[in-house]
C-alpha cells in the first residue's frame, strides 16, 4: 500500500515535471534577439533603475549584481489578483530565504499611496522582516511603468493577448546579466511549481 502510494506520488511528480515549459535543461533567454552586423547576438535586457525600498533605501540594478532575482508588480490596495500573486511570491521566499544568491523585487504601481512606510507595514504584515532579501519598492510612476513595460514586453507569451501588465499577475525570473530567463502566471500554483524548478536550475548556472 505504502509502495503503491509512493509509486503514484512519483508518477504524479513526473507528470508535473512533464507539464512544465522547461524540462530541467539550461533555461532559454526569453525575448526577441537581434543579430549585429558583426554577427553578435544581442538579447533584450532590463534597463538600469533606481527605486526606493521599504526601508527608504535606494535600490538599483547594482543591488542585484551577481544575483538572480524574481520580480512582480502589485499595490497594497489591489482588490483582485495581487493577494494571490503575493501568496505565490511568499512560496518563493520561503523556499529560497536561506539562499543568498536569490533576491525578490516587488514593485508597487501605486506610488502615490504605497510610500516606503506603507510598504514596510505591508511587508511586516506578510512576516517579511529582512528587507535585504525581499525589496518592496516605490518610485516615480512613469519609471515604474517603464520598467514594467520592459519586463512584460519581454515576458510575453502571445503578443496578441489583450490586457495590460497591471492585471497579468506574472512572476519573472531575471539572471545575473539582467536577462529574463523564465516567467509564470503568479495566480496559478501549478505554474509556480514549474517556476520554482526553473529558479533551482538557474541557481546552478555559473
Amino acid at each position, binding site marked *: 500500500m505504502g509502495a503503491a502510494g509512493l509509486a503514484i506520488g512519483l508518477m504524479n511528480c513526473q507528470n508535473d515535471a512533464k507539464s512544465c515549459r522547461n524540462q530541467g535543461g539550461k533555461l532559454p533567454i526569453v525575448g526577441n534577439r537581434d543579430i549585429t552586423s558583426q554577427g553578435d547576438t544581442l538579447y533584450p535586457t532590463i534597463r538600469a533603475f533606481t527605486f526606493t525600498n521599504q526601508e527608504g533605501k535606494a535600490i538599483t540594478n547594482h543591488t542585484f549584481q551577481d544575483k538572480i532575482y524574481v520580480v512582480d508588480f502589485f499595490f497594497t*490596495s489591489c*482588490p*483582485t489578483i495581487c493577494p494571490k500573486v503575493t501568496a505565490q511570491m511568499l512560496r518563493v521566499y520561503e523556499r529560497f530565504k536561506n539562499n543568498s544568491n536569490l533576491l525578490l523585487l516587488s514593485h508597487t504601481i501605486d506610488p502615490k499611496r504605497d510610500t516606503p512606510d506603507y510598504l514596510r507595514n505591508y511587508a511586516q504584515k506578510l512576516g517579511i522582516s529582512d528587507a535585504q532579501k525581499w525589496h518592496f519598492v516605490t518610485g516615480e510612476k512613469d519609471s515604474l511603468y*517603464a520598467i514594467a*513595460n520592459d519586463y512584460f514586453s519581454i515576458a510575453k507569451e502571445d503578443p496578441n493577448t489583450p490586457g*495590460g501588465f*497591471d492585471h497579468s499577475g506574472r512572476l519573472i525570473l531575471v539572471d545575473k546579466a539582467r536577462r529574463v530567463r523564465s516567467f509564470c502566471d503568479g495566480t496559478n500554483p501549478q505554474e509556480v511549481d514549474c517556476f520554482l524548478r526553473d529558479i533551482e536550475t538557474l541557481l546552478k548556472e555559473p
Partner: protein
Amino acid sequence: MKKIIQKQFIINILLFCIVINLLCLCACKNPQEAVLNQLNDEVMKLHNETMPKMGDIYQLKAALKKQSETTHEDSTHLKEALLEAQLSLAKADDDMMTWMHHFTEGKNAAKTYEDKIKFFKTQKDSIQIVNNQIYMSIAIASKYVNIK
C-alpha cells in the same frame, strides 16, 4: 427509572431544538452571503473591464508626450490638445487607483449586512464613472496617437 427516561427525553428534545436553530441560522446566513457575493462580483466585473486598459493608458501618455515634444512650437492649439489628452489620461489612471483604494478600505469597514449592501451599490455606480473616464480619455488620446 421512569424519571430517568423522562429526563433523557427532555434532553433529546432540547438537543433537537438546538440543531434545528443552528440549521436555521446557517440557512438564513447563506442567502445573505450569496447576495453579497453576487454584488461583489458585479462590481469586480465592471472593474475588470477597464483595469487591463491601465497599460494602454501608460503607453498612450508616453506616446502623447513624445508627439508633443516633436510638435512645432507654433502649433499651440495642437500642443494644448496633446497636453489636455495627457491630463485626461492621468485623471483616469488616478481615478482608478483611488477607487481601488477606497473599495478595499470600505469593504473591510462595512460591518452589517445593510451597510455592505449599501456599500456595494455605491461602488457599482462609482466604478462605472471611473470606467467612463477611462474610455473617454483613451478615445481622446487615440485621435492623436496610435499605440497598436
